[in-house]
């Protein structure tokens, strides 16, 4: 068994005051200066630590308040009110919700799992990943202790093609050639960003992060410059330019390369493999209704790794797009059905926003995932997409310090890793590899609704 995978975390303070859900609306005039709010009522010392951030003109009252309402309820002149914070509501969009963004910030800052008191306060269920629940083991099944336990739960996965059977020579020696496989200690690689402020600092943060975590970051061939070149061992080059310009020496510093699904990606795969046989080649495939057939075809042609990508909302292409979780199930089950699923690695990406999405997409059939926006969010991105429109970044991501950025990424991934362990532990599953495709250990909204509620109101 490999040594226990552990991600070092350390507090990486925010550069900007947090944008929180609610703010305090306090009328200064009429304040009796009785100091109840300061001295007695605020156990979080929010009022005593008051400070104004010049860049955002944001009062720390807003970002440090924990919503206990004691000041609101005890102010003798009823001068303190609370209101929802407009800036919070403006974060992200319907998919990248303010709740998701702020939880990502918390994890990136602290490296800790978000823990809170009281029961779940969110909606009963929702679209996409919110329409499924994962299983747990009770009494009748062996279980695991999760992150606090003594048993080791592995989150390692393999990227590459697997031989389905070994052939032995007359002397018992293995004669079949095993394709190259790259092991990553957590089922996550870093993808290219759909949008980002320009410059090297963000890709460098990703590469530093990948290095620290033992995983890889996908970098466009066109973005390679002398600075990025230093980090090629932790990069997966995405071939968006002339394959001919990728010379053998450069290829040899790589472990994985990604090619677009074009006219003949297999030919490209062969070309790279001929130059560097240990190279794992990933084919990047836009998720679509045709993905299952295309995947099957490519596998039959010798594809090793398929990177199935949805858009930033987890949707495939087409007019009536399916969500990544559904299409992944579809592709996975199709490949199982055709008996080829175990030969390849499927990596899903697009719309992965939370740790739970990781577990859920693996249950739906992915071996690993690629993530993008959460890494940017870990560096305080507000998913405002101003960069996409050419407007300057409100949190100055273009000149972020890559060391700080990579620390934030590491913290985030540490928290995600721990959460994956919690899920695996609760299910009594010992390794992430075993979670793949375990749809029987999940509960789906559509099934349960039909089973439970459809019969209501019927007499007799």
């Amino acid at each position, binding site marked *: 068994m490999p040594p226990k995978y552990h991600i070092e975390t350390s507090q990486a303070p925010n550069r900007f005051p947090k944008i929180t859900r609610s703010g305090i609306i306090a009328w*200064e*005039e*009429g*304040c*009796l*200066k009785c100091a109840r709010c300061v001295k007695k009522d605020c156990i979080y010392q929010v009022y005593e630590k*008051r400070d*104004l951030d010049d860049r955002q003109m944001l009062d720390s009252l807003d970002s440090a308040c924990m919503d206990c309402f004691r000041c609101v309820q005890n102010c003798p002149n009823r001068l303190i009110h609370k209101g929802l914070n407009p800036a919070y509501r403006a974060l992200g969009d319907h998919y990248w919700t303010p709740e998701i963004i702020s939880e990502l910030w918390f994890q990136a800052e602290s490296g800790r799992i978000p823990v809170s008191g009281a029961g779940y306060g969110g909606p009963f269920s929702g679209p996409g990943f919110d329409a499924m629940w994962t299983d747990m083991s009770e009494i009748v099944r062996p279980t695991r202790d999760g992150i606090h336990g003594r048993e080791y739960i592995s989150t390692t996965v393999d990227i590459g093609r697997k031989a389905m059977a070994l052939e032995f020579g007359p002397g018992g020696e293995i004669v079949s050639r095993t394709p190259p496989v790259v092991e990553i200690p957590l089922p996550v690689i870093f993808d290219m960003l759909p949008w980002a402020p320009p410059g090297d600092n963000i890709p460098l943060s990703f590469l530093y992060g990948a290095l620290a975590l033992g995983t890889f970051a996908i970098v466009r061939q066109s973005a390679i410059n002398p600075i990025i070149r230093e980090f090629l061992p932790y990069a997966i080059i995405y071939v968006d330019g002339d394959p001919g310009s990728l010379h053998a020496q450069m290829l040899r510093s790589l472990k994985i390369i990604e090619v677009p699904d074009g006219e003949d990606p297999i030919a490209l795969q062969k070309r790279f493999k001929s130059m560097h046989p240990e190279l794992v080649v990933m084919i990047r495939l836009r998720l679509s209704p045709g993905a299952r057939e295309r995947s099957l075809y490519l596998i039959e042609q010798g594809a090793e790794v398929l990177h199935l990508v949805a858009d930033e909302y987890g949707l495939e292409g087409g007019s009536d797009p399916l969500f990544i979780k559904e299409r992944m199930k579809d592709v996975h089950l199709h490949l199982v059905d055709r008996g080829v699923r175990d030969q390849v690695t499927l990596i899903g990406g697009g719309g992965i926003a939370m740790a739970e999405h990781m577990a859920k997409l693996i249950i739906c059939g992915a071996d690993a995932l690629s993530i993008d926006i959460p890494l940017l969010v870990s560096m305080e991105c507000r998913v405002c997409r101003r960069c996409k429109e050419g407007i300057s970044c409100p949190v100055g991501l273009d000149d972020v310090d890559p060391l700080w950025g990579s620390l934030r990424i590491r913290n985030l991934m540490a928290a995600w890793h721990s959460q994956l362990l919690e899920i695996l532990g609760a299910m009594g599953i010992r390794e992430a590899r075993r979670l793949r495709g375990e749809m029987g250990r999940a509960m789906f909204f559509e099934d349960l609704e039909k089973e439970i509620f459809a019969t209501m109101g019927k007499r007799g």
Partner: protein
Amino acid sequence: MITAERKPMAEIRAMLAPYRKILVVGCGSCVAECASGGEKEVGLLASALRMDAKIEGRTIEVREMTIDRQCVYEFIDQLTGIADRYEIILSLGCGAGVQAVAEVFPKMLVIPALNTTFIGETKEPGLWVENCRACGDCKLGYFAAVCPVTRCAKGLFNGPCGGSKNGVCEVDPDSPCAWQLIIERLENAGRSDLLEAIYPPADWSRQQGKGPKKIVREDQRSEG
């Protein structure tokens, strides 16, 4: 509480003109309550001073600090080790605060940013009214808890002057005639008899005796 008002900027600027490193010290007690010398006012004044310097092309260093009370050594001590890094202390305390700070830092120049005005009451948000002159010989018990020393323009002890009309003072028509109030309150309380008495001249020595007044409470004093 003790109330104060910020001095005109021109006066503060003139006093500060020769100095570059300024420690602006607020007081979290009375002057914070009357919105003249608390943390916020310190912030505002510091900001104004910085801008003023920028306008004139000067570079100044302004540090803002607000202590709980400028008239108590224990709180002033928070400035120890900081104050001597500055050339001057601009105090937003009352007169007592300014002097107490100066006493703790004998080598430093301390200048007031406020005019200490009076002992008053918060009538309503943003309105403070004087109602005690600290005469040291409180007679409110005879005057139905309305102080004629403070609230009558002439400090009359024996009834209103001839200028009282419609319940207001001739000197300041926005102020009620203190004697009108005294008379009403005593009548309401059934003590009109107190109105007939002649009150002898006050003992002002309790207010301005020999130098500063002192109070000594032996039980409150420590041995050490």
